[in-house]
């Protein structure tokens, strides 16, 4: 379905899908074609803003992670971590190796849970021609039970380490207020190893799923770190070239307000760019561990991939990566032994940026603190917001290739495109 094969269809078409389903938050698809000419393409975001950046003013750095985890029910751990890293950067604090390992492990849990939720519960129903995962519980019980088992594993990693995945409790600036027992880590490791057959079965299932063959090359941004597939830390790397320290994210990530979306749009070297699993795969595929490489190969995902629908496939690859990373991280923690550490910090004024790769892409928190550690100004840049302009660019490219199809098919294809991005809309609006 590349641009080469487009046949001219002199058609009028108005698509208005209100509140696209099986995504997080509220977004509307609007397309208008007149006499075969694309007049309007919009992904409207009417989601109510919560104004987190304004609300944070006057609050202590110590509360910021508990406030900002509430930006997002799906990537609460990601927000908490970006917040902690921003505060630590502002205060000039370097968290211990143990703290970083524990955070990485919780991140793996969040990647597993969020990705499984997306490709099994939100995307798979389209491939199987049903409206939700609910009918699959009776037609494909083994698939649903496998999905629930994998999802629960991701949740339990975060639950054991942070109290719960949705709005983690024990993660604080420079440490943890609760530490896992070694027996808990050993049990988690066993469950992670036990999840590898579930992962293989997942790969097999999605080998048989055919996703639309649509290509549009764009700029891909992801954190990059030599020697690891970056989730927790790294510099900003662009597929168009250039590596920028995360602290200077404003040089790379430009935000603008558009009237039809309470989520701001972003651009970098071109009019739009993509973040998320596919962008990370394109930028960092060489850092993947064997399990994830095998998954990518089995699923036929090769870098660079310019098909946004394959973001879901890249999520399966990343689930493999997170499982293997979690096993290795637990080994590292068990070898070191878990110790109680002093997490006190010296409060001072400063400016700090925290950047992490959350399930949907790069997340930035930036705080300016006064001498008492109160937030004077805050900026949050959310993956889904960064993807909005790119999603619209994809919609503009795909609509002309669909004009010879019946309207419900066009609508479904556009909804599937939106879902492929796994948007977290309430998060993007914050």
């Amino acid at each position, binding site marked *: 379905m590349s641009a080469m094969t487009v046949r001219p269809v002199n058609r009028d078409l108005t698509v208005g899908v209100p509140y696209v389903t099986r995504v997080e938050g509220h977004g509307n698809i609007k397309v208008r074609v007149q006499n075969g000419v694309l007049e309007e393409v919009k992904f409207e975001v009417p989601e109510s803003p919560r104004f987190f950046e304004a609300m944070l003013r006057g609050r202590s750095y110590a509360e910021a992670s508990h406030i900002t985890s509430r930006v997002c029910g799906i990537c609460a751990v990601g927000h908490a971590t970006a917040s902690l890293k921003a505060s630590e950067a502002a205060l000039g604090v370097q968290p211990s190796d143990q703290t970083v390992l524990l955070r990485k492990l919780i991140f793996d849990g969040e990647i597993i849970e969020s990705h499984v939720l997306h490709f099994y519960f939100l995307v798979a129903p389209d491939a199987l021609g049903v409206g939700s995962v609910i009918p699959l519980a009776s037609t494909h019980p083994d698939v649903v039970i496998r999905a629930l088992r994998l*999802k629960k594993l991701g949740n339990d990693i975060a639950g054991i380490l942070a109290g719960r995945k949705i709005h983690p409790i024990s993660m604080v600036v420079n440490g943890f207020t609760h530490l896992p027992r070694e027996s808990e880590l050993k049990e988690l490791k066993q469950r992670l190893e036990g999840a590898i057959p579930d992962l293989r079965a997942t790969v097999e299932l999605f080998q048989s799923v055919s996703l639309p063959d649509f290509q549009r090359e764009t700029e891909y941004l992801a954190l990059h770190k030599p020697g690891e597939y970056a989730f927790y830390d790294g510099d900003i790397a662009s597929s168009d070239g250039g590596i920028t320290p995360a602290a200077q994210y404003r040089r790379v990530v430009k935000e603008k307000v558009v009237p039809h979306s309470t989520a701001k749009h972003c651009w970098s070297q071109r009019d739009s760019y993509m973040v998320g699993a596919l962008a990370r795969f394109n930028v960092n595929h060489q850092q993947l561990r064997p399990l994830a490489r095998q998954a990518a190969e089995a699923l036929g995902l090769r870098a660079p991939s310019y098909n946004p629908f394959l973001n879901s496939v890249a999520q399966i690859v990343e689930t493999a990566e997170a499982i293997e990373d979690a096993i290795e991280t637990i080994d590292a923690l068990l070898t070191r032994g878990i110790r109680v550490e002093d997490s006190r910090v010296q409060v001072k004024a400063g400016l700090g940026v925290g950047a992490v790769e959350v399930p949907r892409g790069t997340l930035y928190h930036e705080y300016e603190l006064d001498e008492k550690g109160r937030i004077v100004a805050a900026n949050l840049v959310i993956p889904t917001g960064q993807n909005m302009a790119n999603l619209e660019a994809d919609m503009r490219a795909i609509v002309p290739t669909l004009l010879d199809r019946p309207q419900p098919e066009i609508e479904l294809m556009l909804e599937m495109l939106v879902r492929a991005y796994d948007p977290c809309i309430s998060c993007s609006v914050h």
Partner: protein
Amino acid sequence: MRPKIGVFDFTGCEGCELQILNLEDEILDLLKLVEPVNWREAMSERGDDYQIALVEGAITTPHEIERLKSIREKAQILVALGACAHLGGINCLKNHFDQADVVRQVYGEGARYFETIPARPLSAVVKVDYAIPGCPIDKREFLEVIKALLIGKKPPLPSYAVCVECKLADNPCVFDQGMTCLGPVTRAGCGAICPSYGNRCEGCRGLVEEPNLNGYRAVLTERGLTTEDVLAQFRLFEGCLEVAKS
């Protein structure tokens, strides 16, 4: 026949709905007892014939007021799901600022495109039959409430404070660790999860009925806390604001 349910969301993070999906061990059994007919986050069907509406999120725009009223009209039972729906939740932090300034802070020149009103709980707009407190909701409590609704009973909520559950969990007192805790006046039901993981109670479940306010104020004064400190602490989920004012 299984009662039909609708799950709806307003201003919030949708974490409480995700808590329902996080019932990995129970959700298949739950689906044998209730029939979701409208749940945008999880399914494409959009039925209007639900008896029970589970509603997440606070109300922060005029449009949301109308949408909530229309859900109320269709539902026999409306349940507020989580702190945002129940109390207004974290969204109410913005109510302490000038609303126009809040929009300008975030959208700058683009502020003119967007409208916001002070955040409020569902009960400020429509009749709410029951609330499941918490940020996020507790999964086990959610199941208890659904079970009660299915057998036509009033869903039970603990009438004692988080302190009780904290003592049962054998946690050291949060005040003794130099933190201010809302556990003495906050409704239990969460298993004192925050103190159990080394944090203080942040009051996300709202005030217990008949809190011991005098005793609580004495504890705060003893610790040398100023009114300003206390007010700021109580603002996080809005649940205990009345205490701060009293």
